[in-house]
Every structure is written in C-alpha cells, then in structure tokens.
C-alpha cells in the first residue's frame, strides 16, 4: 500500500477522487428513507457532515505515507487487523445493500446466499485485477452515473414541485444531529483514503478535500432533485434516489428502474472490489506474505466478506461512525504524534 505495494499500481489524484466518489455515490443510491427528517434538514446535514469530514481529515493530511506507520510490531499488526475487519465489513455492507436493493425492487424470492456468493466472487475477481483497473473503471462509471442521473432529472423535471422545501408545517425537533451522524456513518469510504495515499502519485490532501467538496455538491444536488421531484413519496419509497426513475417520462422505455439497477450493481461491484483489495493488502501485511501467496488473500477476503453478509446487522455496526472516527482520525493522529515525538527525541 506504500510505494512498495504488494499489488503495485499507481493512480492519479483524479482517479483517487473518482474511486472515492463512486463508493460514495453507491451509498447515496442505497440510502434508506427517513420520514422524520425533512429535505432541508438533509441538505444541512450533508453540509455539516462534509465540514466534519474535512476537520477529522486533518491528522491524515498532515501525515506522509500514513500506512507505513503500521509497522510489524504488535500494535502495527493490531491496527492492521482493525482496518482489515473494517474494510471487510464495509465490503460486506455494500454486498448486503446490493442484495437488499435487488430483493426489494426486483427479485422478491432471490436467495441471499446465492446472490451474495456471486457478488463476493465477482468482487474478488475485480479486486484481483488491481487498483488501476478499479480506478479507471470508476472514472468511466462515474461519468455514466452523472449522465444517467442528469437524464433522469431532466426527464422528471416536469413533475418537480419545490413546495416541499417551503413546507412551513414541518417542525424541526432536533433531527439535524441524528441526520449528521447517519450521513457520517455512511461515509466509510474516507477511511480508504489512508491506503489510497500509497497508490496515489501525489499527496493525498488535494484529492481528499476535492472528494469531500464534490461529494457535498453532488449529494446536495441529488437530495434537492429527489425532494423537488419525488417530494413526500421519497419518504416512503424504499430507495429515495431510485424514485427519480419512477417519475422519468421517456419515449424509449416504459420504466427506467432497470437502468438504475444496472448503475447501482456496477457501482456496488467496483466499490466492494476496492474494499476487498485493501483488505487483501492488509491480510498480506498481517501474515507477511507476498507474490503467489497473495492470490490466496482474495478468496479469503471474499469468504470473510460473505460470512459478514450472512451475519446481517453486524456489518453495519462495524462500519458506523465510531469505527470510522477511530480508524480515520484517532490512529493517524496517534501515528502523527508518535512521529513528531520521535523527531524531537532524535534532535
């Protein structure tokens, strides 16, 4: 994961942003509704969440080669295990959310184990192809995502109604902190920035803050569009983002739900593969294996990911905001302080 990454590969700052952004967009697509939180509160929550993410990223951006701080000692391996569990959990969560989407929207009788195995195997294969393949494909997929989203919005704009944003009957009763916490809990992709620093050709600071800024803009845009077009229907729809496709009028298709599913599945596979790749790197780092043995790490990661998908609920807890804060801020902060102390002592 540093310049001597086991899997090799280098990606640019733009590819770093697109990879993180695609992971974030997947979480946005599978975001569940919350009828207690108005759209104005959701917009505010997105902004506050972005601000918090920018602040808690400070220790990371002050570190150079953050992952090289995880040395081979007891604490280094312990931290690697924590990160590994986190990424396996978040990969499992992505697969679970993909299955949940398929089950609720299209395939009511779909077998959970079968679908999750299929997705885990495909994600393991995509992870095996390396970070460069995932980064480039994320750029392509993100472009498709934006084109399709803009098309859905334009096709639905005739049905938009901005009164939901001027609804004076909505009473604010302190939903903002909960909404912010919920948004932060669905922002696990920022932890991956620690390891993307090792793949990136440039310093992680600019791509990370670019990602946070773009994510805020896109999230607010989509929340606004969903609110304006779907309105209160978005509160009861299983997937509010998908409700845009319910309202899209076009001459080609009767409904565009399946198009939305295609985007979601492809984004989910790339996201989960990305997390599996990092988890495999960590497994290799824990057991100090390289070369051909590395190939074993992908099935291993996929199997563990699969087990977490079956143990429903635990995956979501393992990648909520508290673990994110610990892994994204606390550990890098500790490494930063230890390095500074070491520098002072050596003087």
């Amino acid at each position, binding site marked *: 994961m540093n310049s001597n990454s086991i899997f090799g590969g280098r990606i640019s700052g*733009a590819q770093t942003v697109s990879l993180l952004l695609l992971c974030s967009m997947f979480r946005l697509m599978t975001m569940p509704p919350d009828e207690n939180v108005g759209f104005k509160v959701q917009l505010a929550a997105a902004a506050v969440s972005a601000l918090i993410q920018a602040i808690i990223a400070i220790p990371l951006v002050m570190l150079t080669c953050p992952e090289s701080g995880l040395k081979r000692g007891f604490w280094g391996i312990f931290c690697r295990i924590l990160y590994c569990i986190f990424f396996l959990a978040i990969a499992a969560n992505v697969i679970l959310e993909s299955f949940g989407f398929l089950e609720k929207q299209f*395939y009511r009788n779909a077998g959970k184990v079968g679908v999750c195995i299929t997705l885990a195997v495909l994600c393991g294969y995509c992870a095996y*192809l390396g970070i460069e393949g995932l980064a480039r494909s994320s750029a*392509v997929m993100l472009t498709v995502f934006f084109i399709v989203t803009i098309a859905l919005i334009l096709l639905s704009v005739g049905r938009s109604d901005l009164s939901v944003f001027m609804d004076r009957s909505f009473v604010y009763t302190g939903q903002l902190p909960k909404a912010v916490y919920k948004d932060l809990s669905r922002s696990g992709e920022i932890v991956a920035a620690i390891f993307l620093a090792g793949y990136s050709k440039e310093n992680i600071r600019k791509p990370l803050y670019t990602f946070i800024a773009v994510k805020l803009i896109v999230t607010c845009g989509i929340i606004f569009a969903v609110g304006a077009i779907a309105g209160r229907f978005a509160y009861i729809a299983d997937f509010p983002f998908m409700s845009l496709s319910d309202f899209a009028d076009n001459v080609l298709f*009767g409904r565009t739900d*399946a198009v939305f*599913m*295609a985007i979601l599945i492809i984004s989910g596979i790339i996201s989960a593969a990305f997390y599996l790749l990092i988890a495999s790197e960590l497994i290799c780092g824990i057991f100090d294996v390289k070369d051909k043995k590395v190939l074993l790490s992908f099935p291993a990661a996929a199997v563990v990911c699969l087990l977490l998908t079956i143990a429903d609920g635990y995956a979501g807890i393992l990648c909520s905001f508290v673990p994110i804060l610990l892994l994204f801020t606390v550990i890098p902060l500790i490494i930063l302080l230890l390095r500074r102390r070491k520098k002072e002592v050596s003087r």
Partner: protein
Amino acid sequence: MTKPDMLDFKGVPLEKSLEKNLENIRRITGKSSDLLENPIEINGVKCCLVCYEGMISTSTITELILHPLMDIDIGQNHAPEALLHHVKNHMLMTIDRGFSEDYGDLIRRAMSGFAILLIDGIAEACAFGVQGYAVRGIDEPNGEGNVKGAHEGFVEVVRTNMSLVRRRMKSPLLRFDLFPISEHSNTDVIVCYMADRVPGKTVESIKKRLKSIKLETILGSGYVEPFLDNSKLSLFSGVSVTERPDAFCGKLLEGRVGILIDGTPYAIIVPYLFIENFQTMDDYNMRPYYAAFIRIIKFAAFLLAVFLPGIYVAAATFHPEMFRYGLMLKLAEAEKDAPLPLMAEAIIVLLIYEVVREAGLRLPKNVGGAVSIVGGLIIGDAAVSGGLISNPLLVAVALAVTASFVVPNLNQPVTLLRFICVIVGGFWGFFGVSALAAVVLVNICSIESCGIPVTAPLSPFTLKAMRDVFVRLGFRTLEKGHADIGNMTGANYGRNGRFDEQ
C-alpha cells in the same frame, strides 16, 4: 572440428575445403531434391553455386551472377583469396548480398532465395539475393475495405511490405530492424518504429520478447501476438493486426511499434488502444461531421452487438415493465406460442448463425450462395413460420450480429460476450447483465500494453487526444500537435521498463 548435422548446425563454422563444405551441406539438408549445386571453375579456382530451386529467379541469376562470374579475369593470380577479394570489392552483382561464415547463416540465406558461392580454400561464402519465388500481387485487404482510402494491402513477403511502408514514410527516422525468429522456420520479422517517438527501452523489450519465442515455426501473426500481449486472461487485447500499409504508417507516427512477419500479410501493432477498434482509415478521408457520425454509430453498434440479445432476454423474462405497453403486448403475442424459453431460443439462433457463418467461410465460393439460401431462408424462415422461433427475437439477434460486423476487430470478444450476456440475462435478468458489464469494464480497464492503459485516452483522460475519439476534428485542428501515445495521461511508455515487468 564438429561435424554439423540436420539438427545441430547453427554456429558451426564453414570449412576451407569446398568438398567438405558440400558434404556438410548435403548432410544438413539430407540431399533435398530442391537443393541445386552448380560446380564451376572461376579463374582456375574451384567454386560451387548453391541455391534452392523455386526460391531464385533463373533469369536474374543468369544475368547478374552467372555471366559476371564467368567473365571474371584477375590475371595470373589464381589464389582463392584473390578471387574472394575481387568478388567482394570489385563486383557488385546484386544489391542484396552478404557473407556467411557458418552453416546456420548459409542455410538460412539459401532458403531465403540467395545464391551461395562457395570457393575452395575459403571458409567464407558469398551470398547474392536473387529471389524469384512466386508471390501474390498487392491487392486490397479483404477484411479492411474502405471507400476513399488506398486499396493496397500487405502481402506475404516481408520485404515487399517493408517497401510499402517506406514508400509512405520517406523519413530517415523510420527504422526497420530485421532478424529471424523461431527454431525451425527461421521466419524473418521486421520491427518498425519511428526513432523519435518510441523509447529505446520499448523497442529493445519487444525485440527481446520476439527473440525469446521458442516455437518451432511461425506461420502467422497469431503465433506471435500472445508473446506481445500482457492481457493473458482477458477477452480483449492490447495488440492488434492490420493488413493496411496506410493504417500501419499512421500507427507508427503515433509512436507505436509495428512488426512485419514473413509469410503473413497481417502486421502487428503494439501498443493498441481499445478506442482504436472504432477508427478506420475512411474516417480521415471523410468530412469531420460525417466521420463523427460514423464513429458514434460504431460505438452504438458495439454495445448493440454485445448487449442487445441479452438485454432483450433479460427484459422480456424478468423486466417486462421496461417495454412500453404497446410493444410489450406485441412481444407477448409473438412469444406466447414459442415452445422454448426465451434464453434457449436466443442461444439456438446464435448458434445457428455461428454455424452458418463458419460454413460460409470454409466453403468454396461457388457453393457459398447455397449456404446463404439454406441458412437464411430455409432455417430462418422455416423456423419462424413453424413457430419455433419468434420474430422479435430473430430481429434482435440479426441486428446484433449485423452490428458486430461494424467493428470487425472486436468480432471474437463480441461473439463470446454475446453468448455469455444471453445466458446471464436469461438466468439473472438485468442483475446478471449488469454484473457481466461490471466485470468486463474492470477487465478492460486493467489491461496495459507497453505501459499504456488500453482505455486511454478515456481513462486516464487526456483532453488533447480526445480530438480523435468520439469525433474526428478537422485536420486544421489535428495538425496543431501530433497525438503521441507516449504523452497520454497515465502512460508509462518505456520509462521504467514496465513492459518487461508484466
């Protein structure tokens, strides 16, 4: 001294004695019937002219070799060294000539259409290029036709192909490096490149890979391509072939390396980007707006060729709500009497098409028409009339297979992906098709050729190179800076030898 035999003669030096040399040559070649030996005496020195029948031009050898040799007069000096010196320094005879000091080189030259002059007392042979074997004339390429471009294509003789390239690129920076490869066939290959566009490391890496090929014979470009391709498990490749000298030259100018192989009219180009499968020479002979239109048609055709049957099966089986109401009723009406599931129908139709297509390729031309009638009318029409296959499915499949001919370079992966798409669409609907699309996308994006991502310049994005991707801008714009492949974003063209690392 080691006596050479038919298995072990490379590197064995020639003898001074003419008789021993001839004896060794007969041992190596097993007194092959096409080996001609013509003993002569030149200026009192015993010599022998050795060549292979059918490889040389008798009129050329008579005029350029035999007559001048018979007219040699170097006075009273009958030493073989004097004769050799005279032939080397005072007689030209042919433009292409060389001197062999070992049996390996001698046999290779003889089999390449050289006439070998052996001189008694000299452990060195003179070789004169008098090739006269039968060759096919320069013709328009079969698979890469065009409307307004040149109608010349490569032929099977590598030196003729070299001249076709040189004629179009009269630049001293265009380099040709010729060397033989493979153990038994000793096939001549020529590595072509522009010296100012290709890093030396890349050329050396490619040459190294070619020389390391251990195959016994090279009979076509397909034998060599896998050794240059890094995408071992992918359906797509970072190596391509072309029959067109003009396309070949265009690629060389963009900083690629071309490989001409003796015995095949297909020249290899490496690295090769995915987007180039949609570019043809005709694009550059049309007006930019029309070229852009055709490019977009090609991209759409590729997607149709791969996904249309699979999407149709998936939508009709699992997602009928995708169709508009009127269309859905028509499709339901057409499918209601079909005896087989939609997926099975689609696979059967695709298989029938593949069988008919392959039969059409192998059959002699005078019965090819009969195959078209049998395949198209009898099978297609009868199957639909009999209710075995539905019309909408036939339309979807026919459109997909026709679209695949728009991008002939991708015919192989498209064919296979089409089948897989139908199967996953039939079993898992849009989820299956989407999962397949994801895997194929990541697979293509992970391929690199000579350190260049094959998805360039789309991803990694290079704005300047986009002038010739989805659209083809006018030449007044394109002339402002050439599109060098080494300058693309994310390109690692020979900078750290990554071609070897993969």
